[in-house]
C-alpha cells in the first residue's frame, strides 16, 4: 500500500455552494499532511468525505486502499476522527465515553475498561476520568476527543482543527501528543487555519481555498517556491520612518509597510540588500535592525490567496484565551 490516504478529483456541492471543486490528495503511510485554508475553504468537507460521513458528488477516495464509498465499513475500521464536528458526550464522564466506544468496537467489558484507563493515563486525564465531560476545560476536552478516536488503535487519524479555540499552552500540549502519535507510526491528516500549527506538525502541506487546491509541497519547499523573503529595517529615530519607507519601496518594488517603527517589504531578489544599505547610509539614516528573512507561512498564504489566512475568523488562539469563558 503506497498511500494511506488517496483522493482524486473530489467534488461536492451543497445546493448552490461548491464546497469542493476537484481536490486531489495523497498521504504516504506514517506521515502528516497539513490541510490548510481559511474558514469555509472546504477543509472539513474533505475530512467528512474521507471519514465516510459524506458522499462526494464526483471523484474517488481510498483509505488504506479501501474505497470510502463502496467499502465504507472497512475504512471505518482503519480511521479515528477528532474534530469540531466529531465529539464526545458531555453528559457522560471521560471514562464512560471511552468505555462506550470500546464496547461499540466489540471489546469485552474488561478490555474496554482497561483500554479506557490506559488512554486516560496517557493523556493526563486519569484524575478527571470520573467527572462529567461538561465540566472539562477546553484543553482537557480536546485531549479526551483525541483519546476517544484512538480507542480502536486506528492507523489513520483525521484531526479536524484539533486546537481551534485552545489557549497557547493547551495547544502546545496537544501538539506534543500528536507528534508522539506520529512517532508511533500513525498516518495523520490534519486540518488547520493556523499556519504555525501546520509548520510545526506537517511533513507536507496542501493549501486549499474555495474548494480547490491552490498549492502543495513541504512547508520549506512552499516557502521557497514563493520566493518570498521579507526585508525588515528599523531606523534608530522614529522620524526617519517615512524616508526609510520611501527608499525600501523604491528599491524592492513592493509597497513597504510600517508597524511600531519596523519597516517591512516583500523582496524577490536578495541582491537588493546592499543597495538598501548604501542608500540609507548616503541619507545618513542610522539603523538598529536590518534583516532579510524567509517568509512565514502567513505571508505565503497572503501571496497565494490575496488575503490573510485568518481573515474573517476570530483570529489567533491567544485572542480567544483573553476572551471571557
Amino acid at each position, binding site marked *: *500500500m503506497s498511500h*494511506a490516504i488517496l483522493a482524486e478529483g473530489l467534488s461536492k456541492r451543497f445546493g448552490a455552494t461548491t464546497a469542493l471543486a476537484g481536490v486531489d490528495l495523497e498521504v504516504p*503511510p506514517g506521515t502528516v499532511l497539513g490541510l490548510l485554508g481559511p474558514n469555509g475553504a472546504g477543509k472539513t468537507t474533505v475530512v*467528512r468525505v474521507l*471519514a*465516510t*460521513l459524506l458522499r462526494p458528488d464526483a471523484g474517488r477516495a481510498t483509505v*488504506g486502499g*479501501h474505497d470510502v464509498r463502496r*467499502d465504507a*465499513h*472497512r475504512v*471505518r*475500521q*482503519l*480511521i*479515528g*476522527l477528532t*474534530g*469540531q*464536528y*466529531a*465529539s*464526545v*458526550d*458531555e*453528559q*457522560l*464522564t471521560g471514562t*464512560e465515553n471511552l468505555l*462506550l*466506544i470500546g*464496547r*461499540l*468496537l*466489540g471489546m469485552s467489558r474488561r478490555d474496554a475498561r*482497561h483500554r479506557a484507563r*490506559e*488512554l486516560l*493515563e*496517557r493523556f493526563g486525564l486519569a484524575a478527571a476520568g470520573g467527572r*462529567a465531560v461538561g465540566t472539562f476545560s477546553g484543553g482537557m476536552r480536546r485531549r479526551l476527543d483525541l483519546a*476517544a*478516536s*484512538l480507542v*480502536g*488503535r*486506528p*492507523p*489513520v487519524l483525521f484531526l479536524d482543527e484539533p486546537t481551534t479555540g485552545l489557549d497557547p499552552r493547551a495547544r502546545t500540549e496537544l501538539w506534543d501528543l500528536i507528534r*508522539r*502519535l506520529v512517532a*508511533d*507510526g*500513525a498516518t495523520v491528516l490534519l486540518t488547520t487555519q493556523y499556519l504555525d500549527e501546520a509548520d510545526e506538525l506537517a511533513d507536507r502541506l496542501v493549501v486549499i481555498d474555495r474548494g480547490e487546491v491552490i498549492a502543495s509541497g513541504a512547508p520549506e519547499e512552499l516557502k521557497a517556491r514563493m520566493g518570498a523573503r521579507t526585508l525588515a529595517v528599523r531606523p534608530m529615530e522614529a522620524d526617519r520612518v517615512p524616508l526609510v519607507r520611501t527608499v525600501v519601496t523604491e528599491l524592492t518594488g513592493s509597497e513597504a509597510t510600517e508597524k511600531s517603527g519596523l519597516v517591512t517589504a516583500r523582496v524577490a531578489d536578495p541582491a537588493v540588500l546592499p543597495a538598501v544599505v548604501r542608500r540609507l547610509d548616503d541619507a545618513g539614516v542610522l539603523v538598529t535592525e536590518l534583516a532579510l528573512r524567509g517568509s512565514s507561512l502567513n505571508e505565503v498564504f497572503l501571496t497565494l490567496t490575496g488575503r490573510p489566512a485568518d481573515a474573517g475568523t476570530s483570529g489567533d488562539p491567544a485572542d480567544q484565551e483573553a476572551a471571557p469563558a
Partner: protein
Amino acid sequence: MSGIGDDARSAVAPAAADRELAPRLGLFQGIRQTMTLAWRTVVQVRHNPAELTDFSIQPIMFVLLFTYVFGGAIAGSVKEYLTFMLPGMIVMNMLFVTLYVGQGLNTDVNKGVFDRLRSLPIARWAPLAGRIAADQVKQAWSIVLVLAVGVILGFRLGDPGVPGLLGAVLLLLAFALAFSWVAVLVGLLAKDAERVQIFGFTALFPLTFVSNVFVPADTMPGWLQAFVDVNPVSVLAEACRGLMLGGEVAAPAAKSLAWAAAIAAVFAPLSVWVFKRKV
C-alpha cells in the same frame, strides 16, 4: 495482568494497517451496539436525575390539578373523575415522553456526537435504534409514575385486574415505539432541542385535549366530535380504559394498533430519509 507492564507507547500505537478487516456487520453485532447505545442514554439519566423529575413533575401536577380542580365539576365526584381520566392521562404523558427521543437526537446531531458514532464501524441504524430503545425505559418509568400517583389518590383497577394492566402497558409501549418516529423527525428538523419542546406544546396539547381523555365528547360540536372519534389519542385512551377498568377492548385496541402501524409506516421511512440526507 495484561497491559500493566506495557510500554507507555502501546497506549496509542496503531494496529497494523494490513490487519484483517471485516467486510460487513452482522445483525447480532448491530443489536449489541444498539444495546450499548441505549445503555449510554440510561447512564445520562443516572448522571442527571433532574431530567427524571423534569418529565415526572408535569404528569403529577396534571393528575392533581385535573382531579381536584375539574373532577367534581366534570364528573360529579373527584374519585369518579380520577377513574375516568387516569388511563387517558397515561396516554397523554406517553406522547410527551416520546419527545425525549427527538430532543436527545437533536442534541447528538448538533454537538457532533453523531458524527463520531458514524465514523465508527458500527451498524448505521444503531444510534437511532439505541435512542428509541432507551426511550422505552423512560416510558415504562412514566407509566408507573402516573399510575402510582393515581393509586395514592384513590384510583383502583377494575375487573380485568393485573393482566389487563399489563396489556395496557404493552399497548402503550407499542404505540410509543411507533410515535417515536414522529419525534425522530421533529428532532432532525428542529434547529435546537428547545424547538422540539415547542413542537410538543403546540402539536401535542391540542391533539390530547381534542380527545376523550379529559371529558366525554358528548357536549362538543358535531364536527369536533367527528375528530375526537378518529383521534388516535381517544382510541388509545378508550382501549386503556377497557383494559384497566373493564369495558370494550377488542375494537379500540385493534384501532390503536392500526394507528400505530400507520404512523410508523409513514414516519419511519420519512425520518430515515431525512436522517440519511442530514447526517
